[in-house]
C-alpha cells in the first residue's frame, strides 16, 4: 500500500513544485515588447526618422558608430558614477544633518527644494567658468541633481523612527548620533535604496546635460553633436546606451539592496 502512492508523489512534485521561473526573463520580455511596440508605432504613425527613428534604425546607428559610442559611453559612465558616489555621500550627510535638528530642517529644506526646482542646465555655464569644460562640471552637475532624493529619504527615515525603538537606545544613554547610526539609517535602508534608484537615473541626466553644454566627450556631447547634424538615429542610439547604463547601475544596486535589506522584504503578498 505504501509503495504505490510514493511514485505518484515523486512524479507530481517536480511538476507542481518547479514551474518554470519566468522572473529572470521578465526584463527581457518587457524590453522586447517595448521595442516591438515602438517599431510598430513608428511604422504605423509614419513619423519621420528625424523625429522618432524606429529601433531598427537606432540599432543600425549603434553598429555604424560603435567605436565612438563606446568611447563616449564609458566617459559618461565614469562621470556619472563619480557624481553618483558624491551624491550618495553628500546626500547621506545632508540627510543626517536635516534629520538631526528641527531648526536645520526648517531652514535648509525649503532652500533645497527651491534649489532643486531650478533646471541644473542653467548652472552649467557657471561651473564651466570655474572648472573649464569636461569631466569636472559633468561630475558636479550629476552630483547637484542627484543628491536631493537621497536627502529626502534619509531625512524621512530619521524623522519617522518610532519612539519605542528610539527609547531602547535612549535608555542606554545613547547620543543622538548613535540613534541615527544604529536605528535611523538601517531602518530607512529600503527607502535609501529606493532613493538611490532615483538618484542614479538623475545622475545620468545630470552628467549628460552638462556634457551637452560643455564637454569634448561623453554621450551628451555625442548626442548634441549628432542632434546638430540631425542625425537623430544616433541621438537615439545615445539614449538607448544611457538607458542600458542606467539599467546596469540599477542591477548593481538591486544586488546590494537584496543583500542588505532582506529583513525588510518579508511581505508574503507583495512584490519586492
Amino acid at each position, binding site marked *: 500500500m505504501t509503495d504505490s502512492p510514493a511514485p505518484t508523489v515523486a512524479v507530481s512534485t517536480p511538476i507542481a513544485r518547479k514551474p518554470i521561473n519566468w522572473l529572470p526573463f521578465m526584463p527581457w520580455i518587457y524590453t522586447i515588447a517595448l521595442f516591438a511596440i515602438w517599431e510598430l508605432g513608428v511604422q504605423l504613425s509614419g513619423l*519621420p526618422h*528625424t*523625429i522618432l527613428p524606429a529601433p531598427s534604425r537606432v540599432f543600425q546607428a549603434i553598429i555604424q*558608430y560603435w*567605436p*565612438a559610442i563606446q568611447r563616449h559611453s564609458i566617459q559618461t559612465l565614469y562621470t556619472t558614477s563619480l557624481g553618483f558616489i558624491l551624491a550618495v555621500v553628500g546626500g547621506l550627510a545632508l540627510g543626517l544633518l536635516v534629520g538631526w535638528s528641527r531648526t536645520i530642517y526648517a531652514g535648509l529644506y525649503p532652500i533645497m527644494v527651491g534649489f532643486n526646482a531650478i533646471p541644473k542646465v542653467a548652472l552649467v*555655464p557657471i561651473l*564651466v*567658468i*570655474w572648472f*573649464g*569644460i*569636461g569631466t569636472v562640471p559633468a561630475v558636479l552637475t550629476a552630483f547637484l541633481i542627484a543628491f536631493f532624493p537621497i536627502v529626502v529619504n534619509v531625512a524621512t527615515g530619521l524623522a519617522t523612527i518610532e519612539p519605542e525603538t528610539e527609547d531602547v537606545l535612549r535608555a542606554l544613554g545613547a547620543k543622538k548620533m548613535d540613534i541615527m547610526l544604529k536605528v535611523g539609517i538601517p531602518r530607512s535602508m529600503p527607502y535609501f535604496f529606493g532613493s538611490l534608484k532615483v538618484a542614479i537615473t538623475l545622475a545620468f541626466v545630470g552628467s549628460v546635460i552638462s556634457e*551637452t*553644454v*560643455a*564637454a*569634448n566627450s561623453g554621450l551628451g*556631447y*555625442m548626442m*548634441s*553633436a*549628432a*542632434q*546638430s*547634424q*540631425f*542625425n537623430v538615429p*544616433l541621438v537615439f542610439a545615445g539614449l538607448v546606451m544611457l538607458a542600458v547604463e542606467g539599467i546596469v547601475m540599477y542591477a548593481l544596486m538591486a544586488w546590494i539592496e537584496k543583500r542588505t535589506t532582506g529583513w525588510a522584504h518579508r511581505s508574503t503578498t507583495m512584490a519586492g
Partner: protein
Amino acid sequence: AQDLTPVRFTLDWRIEGPAAGFMLAEANGYFEEEGLDVTFDVGNGSVEVIPRVATGAYDMGFGDINSLIKFLDEDVDQPIKAIMMVYETPTFSVVGRRSLGVTEDPASLEGKTLGAPPPDGAFAQWPAFVEASGIDTTDITIESIGFPVREPMLAQGDVDTVFGFAFSVILNLKAQGVADDDIVPIMMADHGLALYGNSIMVNTDFAEANPEVVEGMLRALTKGFADAVADPAAGAAAVVAANDILDVAIETERLEMANAMNINTSYVQENGFGGVDMNRLDAAIEQLGTSIGISSDISAADVFDDSFLPPAEERMLQ
C-alpha cells in the same frame, strides 16, 4: 618636443565643417611652428564663448562679435576684445520654403509664421533687419521653437520660415527631405544689415601678457583658414578626424557654403582675411542699437583690436 606654450581655446560650437580652419592649422602643424600647444574645447553657441573668455576660463575663443558688442555695452571694462574677423558676412538668415510662399524678397515674409529659437543669433537681429529692409511686421507671427524642432517644424509646414545660420538650416532641411529648390535662404546681410559675424576673441589680460603668443595664433589660424578655403575636402577630412560621427560629404558641402557666403567674401578677397572696416563696425553698432538695444556709446575701437593681425599681404586668400 620643445617647450610649447599652452593656449586654451573655446570654439563656438561642435567641430563641424566651418571649423576646418582651426583643425587644419592644428593638423598642418602651424601652431607647433609658432611654438604653441592649442587645446580646442567645443562650445555651446557663439554667445557663451564670450563669458568663457572674459572670465579667463579660456585664453581665446571664437564667438559672435554682435553679442560681444552687447556684452561690452553692459560693462566696457571687461577684459575681452575681438582681434580677427572670420565670418566677414554674418550667416544670419531667414530660411523659408518656396512651396509655402516665401521668396528671396523679405516682403514675402509678411503674413507668415516665423519659427524662432530664442537664443538664436539670427533671430536677435530681427528688429534691425526689419528696419533695414522695411518690411511690415503686423501680420507676422513669431513662434518660439527650440533648435531640435526648428527644421522638422519647417519641413512639416508648421511654420513657414525659420531663423538660423544659413549653412546649418539649409543642410538640415535637406536632411529632412526638403527638396533643394524648395529652400529659400534670405540672407540678412543682403538686405541692408551691416553686421559682422563670428570672430576670434582674446582675453585682453592674456594678450597683454603674451602678445607674441596671440600674434602667433593669428598667423597660424590665417594659414589654416587659407588652407580650408583652398581645399575644402582636406578641411572636411580634418574635421571628421576630430569628430568621428560626421559625414565627410556633408561637411565638405557645409564648409564650401561657409567659405562662399561668410569667409571668402568679396571684401576679403580685396582686403585680406581677418580685418574689419572700422566704419562699418560703427555702423553695425548703430544697427544693433535697434535690434538688441545698446545703451552706452560704445565704439568700434572698444570692440575690435587689429594690432595682433599679421600684415595684410600675409592675409590674402590666394
